């Protein structure tokens, strides 16, 4: 498998061909299945901004998929309206509508009798792209989702791993460059490690493409990781809370939401911040090529208790403490402790904390793209940052509430005035 390493989310230059997101408005959307007494979705209203990733999360059977499928009218709403980019699409020809909306599902939905390339080419072909245009697009899309076009082009879906199938599924959904992408538990059926990679890839993709994504999951951690905003749904798709991950973690509106957030909201908060956002401290270093004597001197002159030794390519290699050299009788090869864990600047604080906790010295080396040393993060920094984060979240939430109240007051005043001048 060609999964790339976690956290490699460097934004590539934006593609000129790419259409960015559209707004989506759901207005009082309901669905009653024939024969069932209560509606499966009961009056959802939702404003989704262009280029935003919105996650629908909630317990099984609460109507997430039904809500999602009403957006591309795979399920026809019983009542309510759907607007995309302010255009009412509730009565539009569904086939035409769907060609402008990417759709990716849990089982990947790849057609087993078509090759990877044929699967990806489907929508561009249907929308009348030229033959060479389609061909180029297929290569471009495979590239985009991190699969080597030459290797995967002619394969059949069953010759791919689950993770690769999902990538192709996403490539197919994006092939005709739709402004909107709907995803129904797309990573629900792959193992946790692959899921993690796929999520990172989606974040990277979205960084480049700025589509409007509506993503269904019942995994709250996935929601936190991917969402710009999260809609926590209770039964019949009633919105319990629709807000940023930070706000939901620090200020769940009620017991249902906090129950869904689960234990450890503060810990989950760590997933929302990256190492690059906290203080990365300097650390004294030496390299393996330094003469032994100078290393000795550095350790002995009293300023540092510990040094980090880097290898020839500036990558963290060994932690050296005062006395280590002594005990090893002056042999560098035997002295010190090998660095066994590093994090990148894109790693989450959660990963960093994990690394710090398992490190005997309580710190972890931060590395750049090619593994070169940048600095260290330690327990102390992490604790301070987390406390600051939580405090800031709390303040923001209070301010937000305050703003809302003010707005309400303002509106009421305006209405009163409006009523007066109308006479």
């Amino acid at each position, binding site marked *: 498998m060609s999964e790339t390493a976690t956290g490699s989310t460097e934004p590539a230059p934006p593609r000129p061909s790419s259409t960015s997101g559209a707004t989506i408005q759901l207005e009082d959307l309901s669905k009653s299945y024939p024969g069932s007494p209560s509606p499966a979705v009961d009056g959802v209203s939702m404003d989704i901004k262009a280029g935003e990733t919105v996650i629908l999360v909630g317990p099984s059977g609460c109507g997430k998929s039904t809500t999602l499928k009403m957006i591309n009218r795979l399920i026809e709403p019983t009542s309510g309206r759907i607007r995309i980019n302010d255009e009412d699409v509730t009565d539009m020809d569904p*086939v035409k509508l769907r*060609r402008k909306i*990417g*759709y990716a599902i849990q089982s990947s*939905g790849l057609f087993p009798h078509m090759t990877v390339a044929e699967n990806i080419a489907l929508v561009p072909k249907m929308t009348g792209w030229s033959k060479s245009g389609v061909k180029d697009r297929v290569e471009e899309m495979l590239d985009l989702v991190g699969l080597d076009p030459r290797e995967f082009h002619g394969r059949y879906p069953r010759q791919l791993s689950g993770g690769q199938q999902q990538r192709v599924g996403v490539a197919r959904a994006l092939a005709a460059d739709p402004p909107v992408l709907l995803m129904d538990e797309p990573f629900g059926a792959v193992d946790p490690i692959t899921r993690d990679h796929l999520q990172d890839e989606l974040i990277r993709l979205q960084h480049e493409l700025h589509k409007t994504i509506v993503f269904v999951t019942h995994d709250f951690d996935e929601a936190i990781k991917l969402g710009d905003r999260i809609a926590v749904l209770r039964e019949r798709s009633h919105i319990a809370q629709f807000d940023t991950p930070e706000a939901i973690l620090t200020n769940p509106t009620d017991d249902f939401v906090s129950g869904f957030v689960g234990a450890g909201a503060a810990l989950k908060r760590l997933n929302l911040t990256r190492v690059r956002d906290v203080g990365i401290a300097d650390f004294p270093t030496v390299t393996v090529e330094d003469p032994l004597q100078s290393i000795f001197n550095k350790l002995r002159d009293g300023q540092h208790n510990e040094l980090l030794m880097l290898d020839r390519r500036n990558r963290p290699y060994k932690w050296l403490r005062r006395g280590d050299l002594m005990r090893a009788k002056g042999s560098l090869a035997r002295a010190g402790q090998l660095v066994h864990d590093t994090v990148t600047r894109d790693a989450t604080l959660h990963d960093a904390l994990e690394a710090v906790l398992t490190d005997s010295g309580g710190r972890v080396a931060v590395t750049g793209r090619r593994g070169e040393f940048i600095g260290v993060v330690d327990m102390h920094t992490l604790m301070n940052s987390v406390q600051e984060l939580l405090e800031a979240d709390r303040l923001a939430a209070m301010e937000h509430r305050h703003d809302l109240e003010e707005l309400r007051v303002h509106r009421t005043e305006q209405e009163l005035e409006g009523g007066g001048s109308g006479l």
Partner: protein
Amino acid sequence: MNFWEYVGTRHQQLLTDTYQHASAVFQCMVIATLLGVLIGVVSYRSSWGGSLAITSTSAILTIPSLAAIGLLIPLVGLGVPPTVIILTLYGLLPVVRNCIVGLRGVDPSLVDAAKGIGMSRMRRLLKVELPLAWPPILTGIRVSTQMLMGIAAIAAYASGPGLGNEIFGGLASLGSANAINKVLAGTIGIVILALLFDAAYVLLGRLTIPRGIRV
């Protein structure tokens, strides 16, 4: 005269009969396939439509073919017409049934995906559902063909073409010199034809079942 001598002297007639037998079965099979798939496609979505199609085609099968031919003769006369009608009708059932089962067996999430990416009803059917249902349909065609090989022999009763003439001729003159040889030649000819057709279907399967779903 032993069997081989019989075949040697009558090979011209035997070849003609074999050819006509094969040709009748083949042509009727083509009609049965087209009709059967059409019936399947029209009826697989509704539960009663599907059952109606399957029950009515299997009702045809319960009528002994000899009786059916006998009943047809007053209506359409002797020769080719009753043969074609009987073969086509009997050939329908396995095709219709396997077509319905095959189309219903297509993974609903794939149909959902096909809809979701904006395929029209027709395109979905032609590009996704039928190709995925093709292996069971082909099996149905194969089973039908085997069955028609035998039924086609009955056509001789209505003065139809084919190897049935040998068999019926033999049976009618039991006790005469070549009676057994005639029956034997007709029967063996049918068995050989059946084997050849089967081989052809294996080849057809190789050529038409997409590589991605070949087992």
